[in-house]
């Protein structure tokens, strides 16, 4: 089956081809006690955008990604997802938390998060992991979820492993399975949090290939990564974070080809 003859029914295709705003973040701050990790970061991702976040460790790039689905509560700032503003209330101690838990749950269930350490549920087989959220959070019929789940596992090359528990899979297989789990919710945006950092070097390629294919399909993605070459290939927009602010951003050719900031020049030299 080729991709083109399955377009109309293919669950892997993004829902909308319009260039609408998928995620809009304005002036995001995040403070852990005395430590301010994000000092006013703004970003807009439209449908089809692939935004790569790069930066040294401690630059705040992972925290920024985790604020978007509220795994961390931002200290201040505006987050709008699918055109929906997230209402926050003050916790009375300088922080804030989401006013409406259900709104957060609804938004999270449309953001496909892929973690550095895969975080597959160990007591479920690979297929069970993939259908868990569609069936129990999104209310999809089990048969339908299984049919889609099987297609997705085929897409990431894991059909033969559908009934295997995660502990029996290699890191690369687990991460590809985790990507299938993220795709199964038909996400508006995919969030990748250093998806290859926990992998043995020889397993990085298979995971990057899957992510690269998704980028080519026109999926909207936010990607925190240390793989500069990969970021340059797949990203439509790159943001370089340093000490909690966006030091420089732009199209990948520009950013990697002719970096303006001294820090970015140095960063590119050290990682490549």
């Amino acid at each position, binding site marked *: 089956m080729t991709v083109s003859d399955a377009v109309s029914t293919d669950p892997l295709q993004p829902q909308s081809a319009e260039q609408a705003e998928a995620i809009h973040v304005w002036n995001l701050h995040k403070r852990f006690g005395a430590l301010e990790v994000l000092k006013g970061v703004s970003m807009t991702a439209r449908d089809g955008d692939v935004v790569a976040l790069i930066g040294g460790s401690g630059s705040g790039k992972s925290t920024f990604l985790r604020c978007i*689905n509220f*795994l961390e509560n931002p200290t201040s700032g505006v987050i709008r997802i699918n055109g929906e503003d997230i209402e926050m209330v003050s916790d009375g101690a300088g922080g804030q938390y989401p006013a409406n*838990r*259900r709104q*957060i*749950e*609804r*938004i*999270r*269930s*449309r*953001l496909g*998060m892929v*973690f550095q*350490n*895969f*975080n*597959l*549920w*160990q*007591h*479920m*087989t690979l297929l069970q992991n993939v259908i*868990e*959220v569609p069936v*129990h*959070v999104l209310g999809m019929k089990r048969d339908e979820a299984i049919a889609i789940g099987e297609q997705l596992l085929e897409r990431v090359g894991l059909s033969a492993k559908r009934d295997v*528990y*995660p*502990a*029996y899979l290699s890191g690369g297989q687990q991460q590809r399975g985790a990507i299938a789990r993220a795709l199964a*919710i038909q996400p508006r945006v995919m969030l990748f949090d250093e998806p290859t950092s926990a992998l043995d070097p020889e397993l990085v390629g298979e995971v990057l290939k899957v992510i690269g294919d998704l980028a080519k399909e026109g999926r909207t993605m936010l990607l925190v990564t240390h793989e500069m070459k990969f970021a340059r290939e797949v990203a439509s927009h790159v943001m370089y974070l340093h000490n909690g602010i966006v030091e420089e951003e732009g199209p990948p050719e520009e950013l990697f080809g002719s970096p303006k900031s001294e820090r970015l020049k140095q960063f590119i030299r050290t990682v490549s």
Partner: protein
Amino acid sequence: MADGSIIPEAVWQTLALLSPSPPGWGGNLLRGLLHSLQIALGAFGMGLIIGTLGAYGKLYGSPLVRDLAGIYTTIVRAVPELVLILLLYYAGTDLINRTLEMAGYQRIDVSGLVAGIVVLGFVQGAYATEVLRGAIKAIPFGEIEAARAYGMSPTLMMRRITLPSMLPYALPGLANLWLIATKDTALLAVVGFSELTLETRQAAGTTKAYFLFFIAAGALYLLITLFSNVLVARIEKWARRGMPSIREARS
């Protein structure tokens, strides 16, 4: 010895005391066993419910809830179970009846079975709280985070992720609690509840065949344990379905 049997007649007569129908006392012992099992099952189940609430309260509750759970587990685990049973049984039923009388109702007779389950369940709950709290803390943090990241509500997460994930870590401790529950039922003999130990004492006292009846009771307790071990091993195998065998990992 007249019929040439190797076993003396006197031994036969003694063993006949175990016959399930009168004049044998076997029926009483089995009835006592049944009562013991009912109480143990009820108390263990109640302990699991209290323990789950207690563990969640201690882990995720507000400061007040955490303090209350802390006081509960500390006091229950500090006071000897026999004292707790006497206290809860007599003071508990007294309290209920006084409350009823003050509200203008008739005194009630609290059934020994219900009282036994509640009293032992209250004790079990304190230990189960700690077993389950430890097991929940042993779940890899990322699995909980993934559940949050995919929009699971707290109750869905508890049902689908937290409880099944913590089960392998909780089972050894819970199996201990279950076996303790079966034996703690013997403590209810002091409040006159006719479970296995009290039935045994009565049978032995009446017939003077102490050795026979206490050996028989011991054998029944042992059978419960052996049967439980088989069951627990099966449950543990199922609960650990996603985990590679420890033995394989050792090599």
